[in-house]
């Protein structure tokens, strides 16, 4: 496979987007860029299992919730710093993915999708009942926690920088996975799993690893997001709608491509922002999102990147 050049414009683009609020010192811009970066990371990591491997992880938000809860609990109970807590959150998500994957990755197609919804709902109701995690009301930070970061305002900027770093790492990792032998194996599983197995791809190990990778980064994102929010509750952490948003972004941008999730996430955040601000569309944004998704599924299953690649052959090197 010929290596493409998408990283040459993706990384500068992400750095430029991340730098914008820092340069302007605008809090509003920071909030929306934070969301964009978060969406990019979530979409790019879902893409590893959904786009590369062809497994529809419908309840993928469960890993964001697990990472969020692990990190939040460590910070809340033991006063651990955000960075180790975040890494612990990511590792916890990846380990859960390995354990759960051992079982559910044996399922294929739609049954796998339903099973992942089941896993998300089961863990959500379990967390809702665990008293040490605050039950249905969740956990709240004491504001003293932000003191070691130089106050709440600085802590939020710190979370922002961390998110930008995580996003860039995720995109780079997703690029290298796609262009490695491992990625080639994943794509062969997507196209025909049985044939891949016959040809010597260790499908079981490949799928487990892909699932763990795609769970690790949402775990990091959950940790940062809930650190910044200051509280965590089961309905927020395991919200199925967020899972759907992730799938939406991957499909909009183009699944199985490196740049697709980035493009999809940026457009989705902008679109949502515009729709939510407009009084006429404020309450209709769900219906509109559904309509757009339907159009993509029916008429442009390759997403925006798919359309561009088809239209402009020369762009294929930079859009992969």
């Amino acid at each position, binding site marked *: 496979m010929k290596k493409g050049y998408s990283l040459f414009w993706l990384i500068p683009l992400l750095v430029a987007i991340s730098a914008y609020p820092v340069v302007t010192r605008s809090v509003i811009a920071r909030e929306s860029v934070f969301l964009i970066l978060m969406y990019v990371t979530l979409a790019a990591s879902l893409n590893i299992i959904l786009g590369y491997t062809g497994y529809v992880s419908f309840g993928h938000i469960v890993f964001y919730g697990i990472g969020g809860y692990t990190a939040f609990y460590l910070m809340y109970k033991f006063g651990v710093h955000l960075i180790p807590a975040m890494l612990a959150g990511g590792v916890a998500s990846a380990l859960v993915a390995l354990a759960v994957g051992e079982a559910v990755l044996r399922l294929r197609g739609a049954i796998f999708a339903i099973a992942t919804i089941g896993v998300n709902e089961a863990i959500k*109701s379990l967390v809702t009942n665990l008293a040490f995690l605050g039950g249905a009301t969740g956990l709240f930070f004491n504001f003293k926690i932000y003191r070691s970061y130089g106050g709440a305002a600085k802590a939020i900027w710190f979370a922002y920088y961390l998110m930008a770093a995580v996003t860039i790492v995720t995109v780079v990792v997703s690029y290298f996975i796609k262009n490695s032998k491992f990625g080639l194996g994943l794509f062969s599983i997507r196209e025909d799993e049985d044939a891949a197995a016959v040809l010597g791809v260790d499908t079981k190990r490949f799928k487990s690893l892909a699932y763990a990778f795609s769970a690790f980064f949402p775990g990091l994102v959950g940790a940062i997001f809930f650190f910044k929010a200051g509280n965590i509750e089961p309905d927020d952490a395991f919200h199925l709608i967020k899972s759907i948003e992730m799938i939406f972004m991957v499909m909009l941008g183009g699944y199985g491509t490196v740049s697709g999730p980035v493009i999809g996430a940026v457009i989705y955040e902008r679109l949502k922002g515009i729709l939510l601000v407009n009084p006429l569309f404020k309450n209709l944004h769900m219906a509109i999102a559904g309509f757009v*998704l339907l159009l993509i599924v029916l008429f442009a299953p390759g997403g925006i990147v798919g359309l561009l690649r088809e239209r402009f052959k020369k762009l294929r090197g930079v859009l992969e």
Partner: protein
Amino acid sequence: MEAWISAVLSGILLGLAYGLAAIGLNLIWGVMNVINLSHGAFIALGMFASYFIFKFAGISPFISVFLVLAVGVVLGMIAYFLALHRVILAPELSTLLATYSLSLIIIGLGTFFFTTNPRAIDVGLGSVKVFGAYIPKEKILVGIYSLIFTLLLYLFLYKTWTGKAIRAVSMNITAAKFMGVNTTFILSLAFGIGIALAMVAGALIASVFPFTILTGGVYELKSFVICVLGGLGSPLGALVGGLIMGLLENVLTLKIQVGYVPFLEFLILVIILLVKPTGIMGKE
């Protein structure tokens, strides 16, 4: 003792309604190999249809349910041609997302027009005393109706030409086409019937429990568990799965905290998917 009798009776009656809610999903899943993620949205539509007919025309949900059935078939067939027909042979991702976007559209419009305020239908039939436990008459009617609709579906699938065609398409679509079956029509009809049953279940459940536009989602998730429990393709399996769910919810809550019930349900879902994906009633 009375608590137990009441729990078991409620469990059976509720279980029948759950079963009916799941049958539509089961039919579509079995025949078209499509997991209909708009199932819950259509259950909610059925609830609202029943509610508005009761509110503005004063017609009891137990009569208007037949109108809901007819409207549901037409609505379902339209939905099939709008959202599914183009991708019916594409990989699962496409059909999952197509039905999900349908759900987003319905729930989005529903939230816009009906808001998410809870509503309820008070038919006011009173209750009867069974073995010392009081059971609302509406619950009993819902149970009976669920049985009747399941029986009707069974007769339709096994005794009529169209029903047999639906089963033929579910077994081998190419062979059915060679035998002169209009597969496009049959697929759209199967989807229509599945949607209609979802709406009927919603209409009936609305006479017992309060609801919002989002309530359908809860029943959709339960329906997944029921379908997996009962196995794909058989109306009876869905009914049995529904009964197990209903009993589980009503009897278990006497012993354990209510909050743990969903956890157990989804745990069962995942375990059954892993151990015996064809369902406890399904063939190997």
